[in-house]
């Protein structure tokens, strides 16, 4: 498309694949490297003892987390997180499907769900402590009680949004209830369900950390709060780094799962766009 026919439009230069890979890498890693170097410079110059330089933090990271602490603190946290997220997905999708398919139930529960979703999830930690004591169950329950809402509400919306022509077709072909659920309703709702699961994942991570900061004698959140109270600044930074790493890892894993589950959906959208 040439807006000005009088001008010669130069063909885009073709670069070799190697050069492109190098520029890509530079773009991806340039800024983080620059910031890291800058951080090192500032930390060594400044006398702020709350800002150790990256090398000290890396040392503290290796000393603190590689070894028994990984089994004692990190794995149980991740286990509770995984359990909580799995339970939220199962509960949220099951309840969401039932509510989404039953109009009167949806109308009955709508204001209540709206309220329950609006309760800030960390507020439920004291309540769960009161009801269940300081146990592992309590932490999993806290995670579920915060993470289930985005999944549930998105499932309801997704189920409601099932194409009515498809539903009518399935009904007139006498597709059985379970087949309809499995081949029509759940796939139709899956993009929304995945969007809800993405929100739920970050809520669950936050609740995992807070519930451990509040009521625990082990776990990632507890450790970080412990380091802070004892002025172990480099160790504390290393803990924050580890939590960040967990967050990034979860996001990556979720991205892979989402792409697999929704491959057909993205495929259809591509086709429609063309």
């Amino acid at each position, binding site marked *: *498309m040439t*807006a000005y026919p009088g001008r010669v439009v130069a063909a885009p230069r073709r670069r070799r694949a190697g050069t492109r890979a190098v520029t890509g890498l530079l*773009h*991806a*890693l*340039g*800024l*983080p490297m620059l*910031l890291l170097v800058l951080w090192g410079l500032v930390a060594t110059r400044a006398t702020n003892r*709350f800002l150790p330089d990256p090398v000290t933090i890396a040392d503290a990271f290796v000393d603190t987390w590689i070894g028994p602490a990984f089994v004692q603190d990190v794995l149980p946290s991740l286990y509770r997180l995984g359990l909580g997220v799995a339970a939220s997905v199962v509960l949220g999708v099951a309840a969401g499907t039932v509510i989404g398919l039953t*109009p009167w139930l949806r*109308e*009955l*529960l*709508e*204001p*209540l769900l*709206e*309220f329950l*979703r*609006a*309760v*800030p*999830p*960390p*507020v*439920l*930690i*004291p*309540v769960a*402590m*009161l*009801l269940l004591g300081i146990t592992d169950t309590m932490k999993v329950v806290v995670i579920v009680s915060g993470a289930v809402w985005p999944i549930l509400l998105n499932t309801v919306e997704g189920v409601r949004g099932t194409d*009515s022509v498809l*539903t009518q077709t399935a*009904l007139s072909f006498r597709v059985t*209830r379970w087949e*309809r659920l499995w081949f029509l309703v759940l796939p139709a709702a899956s993009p929304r369900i995945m969007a809800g699961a993405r929100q739920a994942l*970050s809520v669950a*991570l*936050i609740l995992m*950390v*807070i519930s451990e*900061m*509040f009521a625990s004698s082990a776990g990632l*959140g507890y450790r*970080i*709060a412990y*380091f*802070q109270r004892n002025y172990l*600044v480099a160790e*504390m*930074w290393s*803990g*924050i780094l580890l*939590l*960040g790493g967990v*967050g*990034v890892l979860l*996001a990556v894993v979720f991205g892979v799962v989402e792409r697999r589950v929704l491959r057909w959906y993205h495929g259809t959208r591509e086709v429609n766009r063309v």
Partner: protein
Amino acid sequence: MPVPTTRRPPALRRALLGVTGLAGFLVGWQAIPALGLIDPQYLPYVTDVLARLAEQLVDLAFWRRLGSTMTSWAIGLTVATLAAVALGTLVGLVPFLRRTTHTMVEFLRPIPSVALIPLAVLMFGIQRQAALVIIVYASFWQVFVQVIYGVADVDAVARDTARSFGLRRREQWTHLVLPTTLPYLMTGLRLAAAVALILAITAEMVIGNPGLGRMIELSRSGGDAVGLYALVVVTGLLGLAVNLVFRFVERRTLSWHESVRGERAL
């Protein structure tokens, strides 16, 4: 499964059912301690909780705490939004910046904001600034990402049309970039408002700066179950109010937009 009807149920029926649902929830709550399923010490009667709630509403100290929480919320949300809009527009419009910051954003965004609580406490102590660090960090990303998408979403044909019609830079901003970005921005703002409230209360619970969150933590450690449940209900109502207000604002500002107009036509 009943065949979904296109006819909307009457609003009255809807409201009635909704109220029934709420009433059922309250009755269920009352029944659990009344039947002795859970000791009232741990799950107090709903009547007691509501009575306490009414008591709080005429208590000046309660309103002061509420004001403190909402002040943190408002400051944090404003700072985060302004920063996110400025940076997001810049990064979204300059392809070079978008490429170079991509890794950094993808790394920083999933870091749970609560991980920064210890750092904030070390830096600022038990003060509002510490809470603000957390609130701003969490709500910044919600708006930032939406603005980047929004600014980059300008329709290519519309952009070329604007250029060939000789629209000036400022006109392109007001007629092209702003209308495209606004729906994204409003979505980001709505999400950020909810997140900021959650973190304002969380920060008070964990850090201990004055506000509703600290009051919740104090009622828990003091064994005041009735007060605790009353405050949980208050935070829920607060969250509900924030959601409703921002949804209303979104509908108002986007009344011209397809997504809102389409809904009304149904």
